[in-house]
């Protein structure tokens, strides 16, 4: 039984003659009919109501560059370049609110539009059509995959960046008096944030030469054992830098957690609320606050 001609057995570029000839023929066809096929694709995109966040002109502009990159990827099989392009594209359109399903959707639509044009072109030669599709399909699928993965990677990168920004925003170390720092913690503390808090605080103690730190956790609803341990470690590490830590604002739940893990409360200096904590810190630092007049 003669081997089926031109059958690629894997997605990797092969140096056998037939497939690459077919590919060249395919690419030439796609380039020749570029205007018409691109127009058809844009129509389909609008019909399926994708990319609604973008204007017609923007869709057309992006469609042009996607089309060209698509055909080039088919021709050169340089998928890294395509992935870089996909990430770049994602960087532009993610802030516009474009979703993953839209990006995957339009790439699949392009695949379909191009496939249909191949059906039309080779409708009189079924065997040839099959061979062309054998060359086209794996490459087209790989392209869809590459673009989708590139898009998702970019989204994940943005999310990580935003998480980092949020974390930094929400852990300011504030000096309210000479040698006195306040660290007001609000929200959810995960182990990573807890670690970042500790590092930031220790650096702050050294920079500001703080002798007392008030850590206020009124805004923290709950902590797990890991984070509670982290808090204890923060207190101990601060002491090694010569600073006393006062923890204020413990909720009943957190107080329970600390007792459960057996925190030596003798080691931890706690006061009910932030006001009380600052007053005690002032006493420790030798300040006396006196009211001289009524507020105006």
């Amino acid at each position, binding site marked *: 039984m003669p081997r089926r001609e031109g059958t690629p057995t894997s997605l990797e570029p092969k140096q056998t003659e037939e497939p690459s000839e077919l590919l060249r023929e395919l690419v030439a066809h796609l380039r020749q009919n570029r205007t018409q096929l691109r127009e058809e694709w844009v129509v389909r995109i609008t019909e399926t109501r994708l990319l609604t966040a973008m204007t017609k002109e923007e869709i057309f502009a992006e469609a042009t560059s996607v089309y060209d990159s698509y055909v080039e990827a088919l021709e050169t099989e340089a998928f890294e370049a395509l992935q870089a392009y996909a990430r770049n594209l994602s960087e532009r359109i993610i802030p516009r609110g474009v979703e993953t399903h839209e990006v995957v959707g339009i790439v699949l639509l392009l695949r379909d539009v191009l496939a249909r044009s191949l059906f039309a072109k080779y409708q009189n030669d079924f065997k040839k059509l099959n061979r062309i599709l054998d060359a086209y399909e794996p490459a087209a699928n790989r392209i869809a995959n590459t673009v989708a993965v590139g898009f998702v990677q970019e989204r994940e990168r943005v999310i990580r960046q935003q998480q980092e920004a949020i974390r930094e925003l929400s852990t300011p170390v504030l000096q309210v008096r000479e040698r006195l720092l306040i660290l007001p913690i609000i929200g959810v503390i995960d182990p990573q944030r807890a670690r970042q808090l500790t590092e930031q605080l*220790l650096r702050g103690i*050294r920079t500001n030469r703080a*002798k007392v730190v008030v850590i206020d956790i009124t805004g923290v609803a709950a902590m797990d054992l890991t984070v509670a341990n982290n808090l204890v*470690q923060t207190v101990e*590490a601060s*002491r*090694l*830098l*010569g*600073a006393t830590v006062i923890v204020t604002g413990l909720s009943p739940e957190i107080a329970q957690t600390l007792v459960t893990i057996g925190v030596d409360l003798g080691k931890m200096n706690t006061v009910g609320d932030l006001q009380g904590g600052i007053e005690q810190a002032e006493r420790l630092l030798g300040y006396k606050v006196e009211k001289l007049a009524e507020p105006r």
Partner: protein
Amino acid sequence: MEVPILKQGAVLIATFQAALSDADLNQLRMGLVQQVVKFRSRAVIVDVTAMDVMDSFASRTLREIAHMIRLRGAETVIVGIQPEVAFAMVQLGLTLEGVATALDLEEGLAYLNEKFKTTN
């Protein structure tokens, strides 16, 4: 490697260089106590600013130094622990419990001043 020990009135100041071997630490322990006896010092400041890592042996040695010196009626203050070192230490459970600590030499001397004032 010798650890330089300076005398500042009633206070001895020992400045760690980076990377002290176990042998150096042992030598220091004996040396410091001998100096405290010789000069009848009231306090020792151990400056570890140059240490970028503190392992359990070094940590234990520092505590032993402090205990031995206390037996001579003198106070020990460890100064200059770097933020990264402090963080690593507490994660390993090395807290230098029972030993006084201060941010740096200046703070260490200020702490001792206060202490001597109140005990006099």
